[in-house]
């Protein structure tokens, strides 16, 4: 594990009204430059954990530090700068249907106030890296599910985020496309981006042999070497 912690959870609970805990007493740490898989069955709390990290939802209790800042007590005006340092690949892509692929990928850069020329250059580079340079002018709904997923990855990576969160990034992909997308994420990690991938796809865990945090009913049931031992046995 890397020495400097980028994400730290201390006894974090998340409870939705009228439901059982989505997260219960979660304590874990993700170091700078790490590549971590969050795994567990549906409803285990993987997506909830990611949402807490990028401040889409507040924790019910406990402490959650992202880039050293306690986001449990973060002021609303401090959320946007934090989010600009995080790239997120959403499970449902969250692409804007009336904007082209290039325009979708450009959104995080426009939000940062980059000059249009710089936006165009960076978008072209990242679209080439995900193999979608010829689809730049297409609209998302005209693309296949795999292509849409790659657009979502491109949008998450275009701003060179310090932290990349991916929620089931290969959930809609065939095996070949899965490898393509995971390779993109791994390449980002190799460039220094800390990566947290939520997935229930065990083949990914076996193929990429990274740290695995397993969740079940909102609790962390194993962390780190446990899966590797199982995978290696």
């Amino acid at each position, binding site marked *: 594990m890397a020495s400097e912690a980028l994400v730290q959870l201390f006894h974090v609970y998340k409870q939705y009204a009228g439901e059982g805990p989505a997260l219960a007493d979660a304590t874990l740490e993700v170091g700078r430059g790490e590549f971590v898989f969050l795994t567990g069955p549906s409803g285990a709390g993987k997506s909830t954990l990611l949402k807490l990290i*990028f401040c*889409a939802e507040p924790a019910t209790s406990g402490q959650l530090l992202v880039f050293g800042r306690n986001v449990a007590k973060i002021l609303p*005006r401090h959320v*946007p*700068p*934090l*989010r*600009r340092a*995080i790239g*997120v690949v*959403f499970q449902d892509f*969250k*692409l*804007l249907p*009336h904007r082209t692929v290039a325009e979708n990928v450009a*959104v*995080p850069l*426009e*939000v*940062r*106030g*980059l*000059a*249009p020329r710089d936006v165009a250059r960076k978008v072209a580079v990242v679209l080439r890296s995900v193999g979608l340079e010829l689809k730049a002018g297409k609209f998302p709904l005209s693309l296949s599910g795999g292509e849409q997923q790659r657009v979502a990855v491109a*949008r998450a990576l275009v701003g060179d985020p310090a932290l990349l969160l991916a929620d089931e990034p290969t959930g809609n992909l065939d095996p070949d496309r899965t490898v393509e997308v995971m390779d993109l994420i791994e390449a980002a990690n190799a460039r220094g981006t800390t990566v947290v991938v939520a997935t229930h796809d065990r083949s990914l865990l076996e193929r990429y042999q990274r740290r695995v945090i397993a969740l079940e009913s909102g609790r962390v049931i194993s962390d780190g070497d446990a899966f590797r031992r199982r995978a290696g046995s």
Partner: protein
Amino acid sequence: MVLRPLSFVRRALEAMARGPFMTAVAVGTLFVALFTTGLFAAVLGGAERLLAAWAGDVQISVYLRPDADLPAAARAAAQLAGGREVQAVPPAEALRRLRASLGPEAAVLDGVSADVLPASVEVRAPGISLAQARALAARLQAVPGAADVDFGNAWLERVEVLLRRLRWAGLALFGVLALATAVLVSNTLRLGVYARRDEIEIMKLVGATDAWVEAPFLVEGVLQGLLGGALAVAALLGLHALLAPRLAAAVGVAAPLARAEVVPPALVLALVGGGAALGLAASALAVGRFLRKP
């Protein structure tokens, strides 16, 4: 983070082009609200000017005693009236006017001597209020030989009351109209914000500040307001061109119905500027409530 105002304008124009229906609804709502307001202001202003044109030509008559010196009374009246037009009316002239006013019935005056009517001094005071007319009439009581001073107070008082009621009714109606307009426009623009909720959500998730999300909506509100205001002005001018000649012929007074009087530059500016301000305020309210909802 760098703010690029031109990019907000570009995004606003793109959004308007992408959602022509919502844009048309918003501009249409603003147009109806501003046109109604403008029409109301034009009609109220026109009515006031017409009434003033009819009633404002105040004439004060100082009737003299039989032994009074008419030229001396006229001089004194001129002095007291402060340079206003003064005319001495001897009894013979008064009788001639009476005959003229009776028209075909003038025969009833046959055999009536001019001495029956008193000499008088007439002071014309166009465009003064009832209070001013009353004060002037009180001063004219000092004319040597004055028996009675008449300034048509009953008629003037009725007109003044009518104008006062018209102003109050106008103010109340304008208040109700303004409130209804603000609510209507805000709700219409809120529909536009709601239609783009996914876009707003995604922008916020990738790190957009509220101000960054809000700015194009505000620009859009201003542009829609300007457009609605301009259309309202155009419609008012069209309506004026259509109706003013007929109305002027019907009431026999044209000057108060001239275009510059009915739709003055101040009203044009108020409608266009007010439209922009209304669009801005309604947008701010609509998007602000959406962004800051729990």
